[in-house]
Protein backbone atom coordinates (compact mmCIF):
# COMPACT_ATOMS: atom_id res chain seq x y z
CA UNK A 1 0.00 0.00 0.00
CA UNK A 2 1.44 3.37 -1.00
CA UNK A 3 1.34 6.43 1.28
CA UNK A 4 -1.05 8.00 -1.19
CA UNK A 5 -3.49 5.11 -0.95
CA UNK A 6 -3.09 5.09 2.79
CA UNK A 7 -3.88 8.75 3.37
CA UNK A 8 -6.66 9.05 0.79
CA UNK A 9 -8.82 6.19 2.07
CA UNK A 10 -11.75 6.96 4.36
CA UNK A 11 -9.63 6.18 7.42
CA UNK A 12 -6.59 7.97 5.95
CA UNK A 13 -8.48 11.22 5.40
CA UNK A 14 -9.46 11.22 9.05
CA UNK A 15 -5.82 10.63 9.97
CA UNK A 16 -4.89 13.78 8.07
CA UNK A 17 -7.58 15.71 9.96
CA UNK A 18 -6.39 14.27 13.26
CA UNK A 19 -2.66 14.89 12.78
CA UNK A 20 -3.14 18.44 11.54
CA UNK A 21 -5.70 19.01 14.31
CA UNK A 22 -3.30 17.92 17.03
CA UNK A 23 -0.59 20.13 15.52
CA UNK A 24 -2.97 23.09 15.60
CA UNK A 25 -3.87 22.30 19.21
CA UNK A 26 -0.17 22.58 20.09
CA UNK A 27 0.01 25.88 18.24
CA UNK A 28 -2.92 27.19 20.29
CA UNK A 29 -0.95 26.54 23.49
CA UNK A 30 2.04 28.49 22.17
CA UNK A 31 -0.14 31.31 20.88
CA UNK A 32 -2.15 31.62 24.12
CA UNK A 33 1.04 31.46 26.19
CA UNK A 34 2.82 34.20 24.24
CA UNK A 35 -0.22 36.45 24.16
CA UNK A 36 -0.68 36.08 27.90
CA UNK A 37 2.30 38.48 28.11
CA UNK A 38 -0.22 41.31 27.69
CA UNK A 39 -1.12 40.75 31.33
CA UNK A 40 2.44 41.46 32.47
CA UNK A 41 1.24 45.00 33.25
CA UNK A 42 4.38 46.53 31.79
CA UNK A 43 2.75 48.55 29.04
CA UNK A 44 3.33 45.77 26.54
CA UNK A 45 7.13 45.52 26.72
CA UNK A 46 7.20 41.79 27.36
CA UNK A 47 4.46 41.18 24.78
CA UNK A 48 6.26 43.14 22.08
CA UNK A 49 9.49 41.24 22.78
CA UNK A 50 7.63 37.96 22.43
CA UNK A 51 6.10 39.15 19.16
CA UNK A 52 9.54 40.21 17.96
CA UNK A 53 10.96 36.77 18.78
CA UNK A 54 8.19 35.04 16.80
CA UNK A 55 8.63 37.33 13.82
CA UNK A 56 12.38 37.66 13.51
CA UNK A 57 14.07 34.36 14.27
CA UNK A 58 14.42 31.47 11.92
CA UNK A 59 12.95 28.68 14.06
CA UNK A 60 9.57 30.31 14.68
CA UNK A 61 9.45 31.47 11.05
CA UNK A 62 10.01 27.93 9.77
CA UNK A 63 7.40 26.65 12.20
CA UNK A 64 5.10 29.35 10.89
CA UNK A 65 5.31 27.85 7.39
CA UNK A 66 4.42 24.47 8.89
CA UNK A 67 1.54 26.10 10.70
CA UNK A 68 0.10 27.56 7.51
CA UNK A 69 0.43 24.24 5.72
CA UNK A 70 -1.31 22.54 8.65
CA UNK A 71 -4.13 25.07 8.74
CA UNK A 72 -4.77 24.92 5.00
CA UNK A 73 -4.63 21.14 4.91
CA UNK A 74 -7.05 20.96 7.85
CA UNK A 75 -9.45 23.43 6.19
CA UNK A 76 -9.36 21.94 2.70
CA UNK A 77 -9.55 18.35 3.88
CA UNK A 78 -12.33 19.30 6.31
CA UNK A 79 -14.48 20.80 3.58
CA UNK A 80 -13.79 17.96 1.18
CA UNK A 81 -14.70 15.36 3.79
CA UNK A 82 -17.88 17.21 4.70
CA UNK A 83 -19.03 17.45 1.08
CA UNK A 84 -18.09 13.87 0.36
CA UNK A 85 -19.85 12.55 3.45
CA UNK A 86 -22.96 14.52 2.61
CA UNK A 87 -23.07 13.03 -0.87
CA UNK A 88 -23.40 9.55 0.62
CA UNK A 89 -27.07 10.06 1.47
CA UNK A 90 -28.95 11.62 -1.44
CA UNK A 91 -32.40 11.24 0.13
CA UNK A 92 -32.47 12.41 3.73
CA UNK A 93 -34.72 11.46 6.63
CA UNK A 94 -38.02 13.14 7.40
CA UNK A 95 -37.22 12.93 11.13
CA UNK A 96 -33.56 13.38 11.96
CA UNK A 97 -31.69 11.46 14.65
CA UNK A 98 -30.43 13.93 17.21
CA UNK A 99 -30.31 12.08 20.52
CA UNK A 100 -27.36 9.84 19.68
CA UNK A 101 -24.76 12.57 19.27
CA UNK A 102 -23.89 16.07 20.47
CA UNK A 103 -24.91 18.99 18.29
CA UNK A 104 -21.33 20.28 18.16
CA UNK A 105 -20.04 16.89 17.00
CA UNK A 106 -22.41 17.14 14.06
CA UNK A 107 -21.55 20.79 13.40
CA UNK A 108 -17.77 20.72 13.04
CA UNK A 109 -17.94 22.18 9.52
CA UNK A 110 -20.10 25.12 10.59
CA UNK A 111 -17.95 25.80 13.64
CA UNK A 112 -14.89 25.49 11.41
CA UNK A 113 -16.35 27.97 8.94
CA UNK A 114 -16.83 30.54 11.72
CA UNK A 115 -13.18 29.94 12.66
CA UNK A 116 -12.08 30.40 9.06
CA UNK A 117 -13.87 33.74 8.87
CA UNK A 118 -12.22 34.62 12.15
CA UNK A 119 -8.76 33.70 10.83
CA UNK A 120 -9.19 35.92 7.79
CA UNK A 121 -10.15 38.91 9.93
CA UNK A 122 -7.55 38.07 12.56
CA UNK A 123 -4.78 37.85 9.94
CA UNK A 124 -5.93 41.16 8.55
CA UNK A 125 -5.79 42.73 12.01
CA UNK A 126 -2.37 41.49 13.06
CA UNK A 127 -0.44 39.09 10.87
CA UNK A 128 -0.60 41.00 7.59
CA UNK A 129 0.40 44.39 9.11
CA UNK A 130 3.18 42.75 11.10
CA UNK A 131 4.64 40.68 8.27
CA UNK A 132 3.72 42.61 5.13
CA UNK A 133 2.20 46.08 5.29
CA UNK A 134 4.15 47.29 8.31
CA UNK A 135 3.50 48.28 11.90
CA UNK A 136 4.57 51.32 13.85
CA UNK A 137 7.82 50.61 15.68
CA UNK A 138 8.87 51.21 19.25
CA UNK A 139 12.32 51.49 20.82
CA UNK A 140 12.62 49.30 23.91
CA UNK A 141 15.96 50.95 24.79
CA UNK A 142 19.56 50.37 23.65
CA UNK A 143 18.42 50.60 20.04
CA UNK A 144 16.24 47.45 20.39
CA UNK A 145 13.48 48.42 17.98
CA UNK A 146 10.44 46.17 17.65
CA UNK A 147 6.96 46.28 16.14
CA UNK A 148 4.49 47.82 18.55
CA UNK A 149 1.90 45.04 18.22
CA UNK A 150 0.65 45.88 21.68
CA UNK A 151 -0.53 49.26 20.39
CA UNK A 152 -2.22 47.56 17.43
CA UNK A 153 -4.09 45.31 19.86
CA UNK A 154 -5.08 48.28 22.01
CA UNK A 155 -6.46 50.07 18.99
CA UNK A 156 -8.18 47.07 17.41
CA UNK A 157 -10.03 46.12 20.55
CA UNK A 158 -11.55 49.55 21.12
CA UNK A 159 -14.35 48.54 18.78
CA UNK A 160 -17.17 46.70 20.53
CA UNK A 161 -18.11 44.80 17.36
CA UNK A 162 -14.60 43.44 16.98
CA UNK A 163 -14.63 42.30 20.61
CA UNK A 164 -18.01 40.60 20.18
CA UNK A 165 -16.82 38.88 17.00
CA UNK A 166 -13.68 37.64 18.75
CA UNK A 167 -15.67 36.31 21.69
CA UNK A 168 -18.14 34.47 19.40
CA UNK A 169 -15.18 32.98 17.57
CA UNK A 170 -13.67 31.82 20.85
CA UNK A 171 -16.93 30.10 21.78
CA UNK A 172 -16.91 28.35 18.38
CA UNK A 173 -13.32 27.33 19.03
CA UNK A 174 -14.38 25.88 22.37
CA UNK A 175 -17.05 23.67 20.82
CA UNK A 176 -14.79 22.76 17.90
CA UNK A 177 -12.20 21.59 20.42
CA UNK A 178 -14.75 19.86 22.65
CA UNK A 179 -15.35 17.41 19.82
CA UNK A 180 -12.08 17.67 17.91
CA UNK A 181 -9.61 17.10 20.72
CA UNK A 182 -10.86 13.68 21.83
CA UNK A 183 -11.92 12.70 18.31
CA UNK A 184 -8.39 13.27 16.98
CA UNK A 185 -6.95 10.85 19.50
CA UNK A 186 -9.59 8.23 18.71
CA UNK A 187 -8.71 8.62 15.06
CA UNK A 188 -5.02 8.03 15.60
CA UNK A 189 -6.02 4.84 17.36
CA UNK A 190 -6.07 5.44 21.11
CA UNK A 191 -8.58 2.88 22.30
CA UNK A 192 -7.40 1.89 25.79
CA UNK A 193 -10.08 2.92 28.23
CA UNK A 194 -7.74 4.58 30.73
CA UNK A 195 -6.16 6.83 28.10
CA UNK A 196 -9.49 7.56 26.56
CA UNK A 197 -10.94 8.79 29.86
CA UNK A 198 -7.80 10.86 30.46
CA UNK A 199 -7.82 12.39 26.98
CA UNK A 200 -11.53 13.20 27.12
CA UNK A 201 -11.11 15.02 30.43
CA UNK A 202 -8.05 16.93 29.22
CA UNK A 203 -9.93 17.71 26.00
CA UNK A 204 -12.92 19.24 27.76
CA UNK A 205 -10.64 21.20 30.09
CA UNK A 206 -8.62 22.42 27.12
CA UNK A 207 -11.80 23.38 25.23
CA UNK A 208 -12.79 25.64 28.12
CA UNK A 209 -9.46 27.10 29.24
CA UNK A 210 -7.82 27.98 25.92
CA UNK A 211 -10.82 29.80 24.36
CA UNK A 212 -11.39 31.56 27.69
CA UNK A 213 -7.80 32.85 27.77
CA UNK A 214 -8.15 34.06 24.17
CA UNK A 215 -11.53 35.68 24.80
CA UNK A 216 -10.18 37.55 27.82
CA UNK A 217 -7.61 39.34 25.64
CA UNK A 218 -9.97 41.59 23.62
CA UNK A 219 -12.16 41.95 26.72
CA UNK A 220 -9.15 43.08 28.79
CA UNK A 221 -8.31 45.79 26.28
CA UNK A 222 -11.88 46.90 25.77
CA UNK A 223 -12.55 47.22 29.49
CA UNK A 224 -9.09 48.73 30.09
CA UNK A 225 -8.02 46.01 32.48
CA UNK A 226 -4.63 46.43 30.81
CA UNK A 227 -3.26 49.66 29.39
Amino acid at each position, binding site marked *: *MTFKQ*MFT*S*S*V*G*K*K*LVMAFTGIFLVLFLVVHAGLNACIWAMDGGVMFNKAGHFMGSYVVPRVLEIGLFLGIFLHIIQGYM*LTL*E*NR*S*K*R*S*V*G*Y*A*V*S*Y*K*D*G*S*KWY*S*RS*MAILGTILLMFFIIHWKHFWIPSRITGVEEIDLGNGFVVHNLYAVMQETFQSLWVVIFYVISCISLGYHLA*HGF*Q*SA*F*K*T*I*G*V*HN*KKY*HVLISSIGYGFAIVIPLVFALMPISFYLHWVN
Partner: protein
Amino acid sequence: MSQNKMNLKLKVWRQKNAQTTGAFVTYNVEGISDEMSFLEMLDILNEKLITEGGEPVAFDHDCREGICGMCSLYINGKPHGPWQANTTCQLHMRAFKDGETIVIEPWRANSFPIVKDLTVDRSAFDRIIQAGGYISVNTGNAVDGNSLPIEKQNADDAFAAAMCIGCGACVAACKNSSAMLFLSAKVSHLALLPQGAPERKTRVLSMVAQMDKEGFGSCTNTGACEATCPKEISIANIARLNSEYLSAGLTSE
Protein backbone atom coordinates in the same frame (compact mmCIF):
# COMPACT_ATOMS: atom_id res chain seq x y z
CA MET B 1 -53.24 -10.25 31.70
CA SER B 2 -55.10 -7.23 30.53
CA GLN B 3 -54.02 -5.74 27.29
CA ASN B 4 -54.27 -2.14 26.32
CA LYS B 5 -55.53 -1.57 22.82
CA MET B 6 -54.49 1.43 20.84
CA ASN B 7 -55.21 3.19 17.59
CA LEU B 8 -52.28 4.56 15.69
CA LYS B 9 -51.53 6.64 12.66
CA LEU B 10 -48.60 5.33 10.57
CA LYS B 11 -46.67 7.40 8.08
CA VAL B 12 -44.92 4.76 6.00
CA TRP B 13 -42.40 5.30 3.20
CA ARG B 14 -43.68 3.59 0.06
CA GLN B 15 -41.45 3.17 -2.96
CA LYS B 16 -42.02 0.78 -5.85
CA ASN B 17 -38.36 0.11 -6.60
CA ALA B 18 -34.91 1.69 -6.72
CA GLN B 19 -35.70 3.56 -9.94
CA THR B 20 -38.82 5.34 -8.78
CA THR B 21 -39.09 8.08 -6.19
CA GLY B 22 -41.09 7.20 -3.12
CA ALA B 23 -43.39 9.12 -0.79
CA PHE B 24 -45.01 8.80 2.62
CA VAL B 25 -48.45 7.19 2.77
CA THR B 26 -50.56 7.52 5.91
CA TYR B 27 -52.45 4.52 7.31
CA ASN B 28 -54.60 4.11 10.39
CA VAL B 29 -54.39 0.90 12.37
CA GLU B 30 -56.89 0.10 15.10
CA GLY B 31 -57.03 -2.19 18.10
CA ILE B 32 -53.28 -2.74 18.36
CA SER B 33 -52.35 -4.57 21.57
CA ASP B 34 -49.49 -3.10 23.57
CA GLU B 35 -48.11 -6.63 23.88
CA MET B 36 -47.56 -6.94 20.15
CA SER B 37 -44.18 -6.51 18.60
CA PHE B 38 -43.68 -3.71 16.12
CA LEU B 39 -43.45 -6.16 13.23
CA GLU B 40 -46.67 -7.88 14.30
CA MET B 41 -48.31 -4.48 14.15
CA LEU B 42 -47.02 -4.13 10.57
CA ASP B 43 -48.31 -7.65 9.82
CA ILE B 44 -51.77 -6.48 10.86
CA LEU B 45 -51.45 -3.46 8.61
CA ASN B 46 -50.42 -5.73 5.72
CA GLU B 47 -53.32 -8.13 6.31
CA LYS B 48 -55.65 -5.19 6.20
CA LEU B 49 -54.03 -3.90 2.99
CA ILE B 50 -54.24 -7.34 1.34
CA THR B 51 -57.90 -7.76 2.34
CA GLU B 52 -58.65 -4.41 0.85
CA GLY B 53 -56.88 -5.43 -2.35
CA GLY B 54 -53.89 -3.15 -1.81
CA GLU B 55 -50.16 -3.79 -1.96
CA PRO B 56 -48.61 -4.87 1.39
CA VAL B 57 -45.70 -2.87 2.78
CA ALA B 58 -42.37 -4.61 2.14
CA PHE B 59 -40.05 -4.79 5.17
CA ASP B 60 -37.15 -7.07 6.10
CA HIS B 61 -37.30 -9.57 8.94
CA ASP B 62 -36.32 -13.13 9.69
CA CYS B 63 -35.66 -14.46 13.20
CA ARG B 64 -37.84 -11.93 15.01
CA GLU B 65 -35.84 -12.61 18.15
CA GLY B 66 -33.05 -10.07 17.84
CA ILE B 67 -30.24 -12.29 16.57
CA CYS B 68 -30.20 -12.35 12.78
CA GLY B 69 -29.87 -8.67 11.83
CA MET B 70 -32.47 -8.76 9.08
CA CYS B 71 -34.98 -6.32 10.51
CA SER B 72 -34.34 -2.63 10.02
CA LEU B 73 -36.70 0.41 10.00
CA TYR B 74 -35.98 3.95 11.05
CA ILE B 75 -38.80 4.64 13.48
CA ASN B 76 -39.62 8.16 14.66
CA GLY B 77 -36.11 9.38 13.91
CA LYS B 78 -34.08 6.49 15.33
CA PRO B 79 -32.92 3.22 13.77
CA HIS B 80 -34.70 0.27 15.43
CA GLY B 81 -37.07 2.63 17.25
CA PRO B 82 -37.05 4.39 20.61
CA TRP B 83 -35.62 1.67 22.89
CA GLN B 84 -31.90 1.32 23.57
CA ALA B 85 -29.91 -1.81 22.69
CA ASN B 86 -32.85 -3.26 20.85
CA THR B 87 -33.80 -4.48 17.39
CA THR B 88 -37.04 -3.53 15.63
CA CYS B 89 -38.33 -7.09 15.97
CA GLN B 90 -37.89 -6.86 19.74
CA LEU B 91 -39.57 -3.47 19.96
CA HIS B 92 -43.00 -3.75 21.54
CA MET B 93 -46.00 -1.57 21.05
CA ARG B 94 -46.02 -0.53 24.70
CA ALA B 95 -43.28 1.86 23.60
CA PHE B 96 -46.04 3.94 21.98
CA LYS B 97 -49.15 5.74 23.16
CA ASP B 98 -52.71 5.50 21.91
CA GLY B 99 -53.33 8.03 19.14
CA GLU B 100 -49.63 8.49 18.38
CA THR B 101 -48.30 9.09 14.86
CA ILE B 102 -45.37 6.83 13.98
CA VAL B 103 -43.07 7.76 11.09
CA ILE B 104 -41.44 4.71 9.50
CA GLU B 105 -38.57 5.20 7.04
CA PRO B 106 -36.08 2.84 5.42
CA TRP B 107 -32.33 2.96 6.17
CA ARG B 108 -31.07 5.93 4.16
CA ALA B 109 -27.66 5.60 2.55
CA ASN B 110 -26.69 5.44 -1.10
CA SER B 111 -24.73 2.28 -0.33
CA PHE B 112 -27.98 0.66 0.85
CA PRO B 113 -30.23 1.20 -2.20
CA ILE B 114 -33.96 0.76 -1.63
CA VAL B 115 -35.32 -2.48 -3.07
CA LYS B 116 -38.95 -1.75 -2.24
CA ASP B 117 -40.72 0.33 0.42
CA LEU B 118 -38.77 -0.22 3.64
CA THR B 119 -36.49 -2.95 2.30
CA VAL B 120 -32.92 -1.99 1.42
CA ASP B 121 -30.10 -3.91 -0.20
CA ARG B 122 -27.40 -4.49 2.43
CA SER B 123 -25.22 -6.77 0.32
CA ALA B 124 -22.44 -4.15 0.56
CA PHE B 125 -21.84 -5.54 4.06
CA ASP B 126 -21.47 -9.06 2.66
CA ARG B 127 -18.86 -7.86 0.18
CA ILE B 128 -16.94 -6.14 2.98
CA ILE B 129 -16.88 -9.43 4.91
CA GLN B 130 -15.81 -11.27 1.76
CA ALA B 131 -12.87 -8.88 1.42
CA GLY B 132 -11.24 -10.21 4.60
CA GLY B 133 -13.63 -10.78 7.48
CA TYR B 134 -12.63 -14.42 7.90
CA ILE B 135 -9.66 -16.57 8.82
CA SER B 136 -8.07 -19.05 6.42
CA VAL B 137 -7.27 -22.24 8.28
CA ASN B 138 -6.80 -25.86 7.43
CA THR B 139 -9.17 -27.32 9.94
CA GLY B 140 -7.72 -30.86 10.18
CA ASN B 141 -8.49 -32.68 13.41
CA ALA B 142 -10.27 -30.83 16.17
CA VAL B 143 -7.68 -29.46 18.58
CA ASP B 144 -7.93 -29.62 22.32
CA GLY B 145 -10.18 -26.86 23.62
CA ASN B 146 -7.52 -25.30 25.83
CA SER B 147 -4.52 -25.63 23.54
CA LEU B 148 -4.74 -21.98 22.48
CA PRO B 149 -4.37 -19.75 25.52
CA ILE B 150 -6.43 -16.56 25.18
CA GLU B 151 -6.44 -13.79 27.75
CA LYS B 152 -9.83 -13.38 29.40
CA GLN B 153 -10.05 -9.66 28.62
CA ASN B 154 -9.29 -10.23 24.93
CA ALA B 155 -11.77 -13.08 24.74
CA ASP B 156 -14.44 -10.86 26.29
CA ASP B 157 -13.70 -7.92 24.00
CA ALA B 158 -13.60 -10.17 20.94
CA PHE B 159 -16.92 -11.70 21.95
CA ALA B 160 -18.49 -8.28 22.52
CA ALA B 161 -17.37 -7.23 19.02
CA ALA B 162 -18.60 -10.49 17.51
CA MET B 163 -22.08 -9.64 18.78
CA CYS B 164 -22.56 -7.39 15.73
CA ILE B 165 -25.45 -8.79 13.69
CA GLY B 166 -24.70 -6.71 10.59
CA CYS B 167 -28.04 -4.91 10.66
CA GLY B 168 -26.70 -1.62 9.30
CA ALA B 169 -28.33 0.61 11.92
CA CYS B 170 -24.94 2.25 12.49
CA VAL B 171 -24.86 3.39 8.85
CA ALA B 172 -28.48 4.53 9.04
CA ALA B 173 -27.82 6.56 12.19
CA CYS B 174 -24.58 8.17 11.02
CA LYS B 175 -24.73 11.61 9.46
CA ASN B 176 -21.84 10.51 7.22
CA SER B 177 -23.43 7.14 6.30
CA SER B 178 -20.24 5.56 7.59
CA ALA B 179 -19.97 1.80 8.07
CA MET B 180 -17.08 2.17 10.46
CA LEU B 181 -18.79 0.70 13.55
CA PHE B 182 -19.75 -2.42 11.64
CA LEU B 183 -16.30 -2.76 10.10
CA SER B 184 -14.56 -2.07 13.39
CA ALA B 185 -16.56 -4.82 15.08
CA LYS B 186 -15.61 -7.29 12.37
CA VAL B 187 -11.93 -6.30 12.40
CA SER B 188 -11.72 -6.21 16.20
CA HIS B 189 -13.16 -9.60 16.93
CA LEU B 190 -10.52 -11.26 14.77
CA ALA B 191 -7.65 -8.91 15.66
CA LEU B 192 -8.09 -9.73 19.34
CA LEU B 193 -7.79 -13.48 18.88
CA PRO B 194 -4.73 -15.58 17.98
CA GLN B 195 -6.62 -17.20 15.09
CA GLY B 196 -6.91 -13.80 13.45
CA ALA B 197 -3.22 -12.94 13.75
CA PRO B 198 -1.79 -14.36 10.45
CA GLU B 199 -4.05 -12.20 8.24
CA ARG B 200 -4.30 -9.29 10.62
CA LYS B 201 -2.70 -6.67 8.37
CA THR B 202 -4.12 -7.64 5.00
CA ARG B 203 -7.56 -8.04 6.56
CA VAL B 204 -7.90 -4.48 7.78
CA LEU B 205 -6.44 -2.97 4.60
CA SER B 206 -8.66 -4.92 2.21
CA MET B 207 -11.80 -4.48 4.29
CA VAL B 208 -11.31 -0.69 4.49
CA ALA B 209 -10.64 -0.62 0.73
CA GLN B 210 -13.86 -2.55 0.07
CA MET B 211 -15.82 -0.29 2.42
CA ASP B 212 -14.62 2.75 0.45
CA LYS B 213 -15.46 1.06 -2.83
CA GLU B 214 -18.99 0.46 -1.60
CA GLY B 215 -19.31 4.21 -1.10
CA PHE B 216 -19.75 4.50 2.66
CA GLY B 217 -18.76 7.79 4.28
CA SER B 218 -15.86 8.64 6.54
CA CYS B 219 -16.33 8.46 10.32
CA THR B 220 -16.18 11.68 12.34
CA ASN B 221 -16.68 10.05 15.76
CA THR B 222 -20.07 11.62 16.50
CA GLY B 223 -21.12 8.52 18.43
CA ALA B 224 -24.60 8.18 16.87
CA CYS B 225 -23.77 4.61 15.76
CA GLU B 226 -22.89 3.42 19.24
CA ALA B 227 -26.00 5.07 20.68
CA THR B 228 -28.32 3.23 18.32
CA CYS B 229 -26.55 -0.13 17.91
CA PRO B 230 -28.85 -2.94 19.05
CA LYS B 231 -25.83 -4.95 20.20
CA GLU B 232 -24.11 -2.06 22.00
CA ILE B 233 -20.95 -2.34 19.93
CA SER B 234 -18.53 0.12 21.51
CA ILE B 235 -17.12 3.02 19.52
CA ALA B 236 -13.76 2.09 21.07
CA ASN B 237 -13.69 -0.55 18.34
CA ILE B 238 -13.45 2.24 15.76
CA ALA B 239 -10.37 3.58 17.53
CA ARG B 240 -8.94 0.05 17.49
CA LEU B 241 -9.72 -0.20 13.76
CA ASN B 242 -7.88 3.07 13.19
CA SER B 243 -4.81 1.84 15.03
CA GLU B 244 -4.93 -1.48 13.16
CA TYR B 245 -5.14 0.44 9.89
CA LEU B 246 -2.37 2.86 10.78
CA SER B 247 0.09 0.19 11.79
CA ALA B 248 -0.83 -2.13 8.89
CA GLY B 249 -0.61 0.75 6.41
CA LEU B 250 2.75 1.99 7.66
CA THR B 251 4.39 -1.44 7.74
CA SER B 252 2.96 -2.93 4.53
CA GLU B 253 5.00 -3.00 1.33
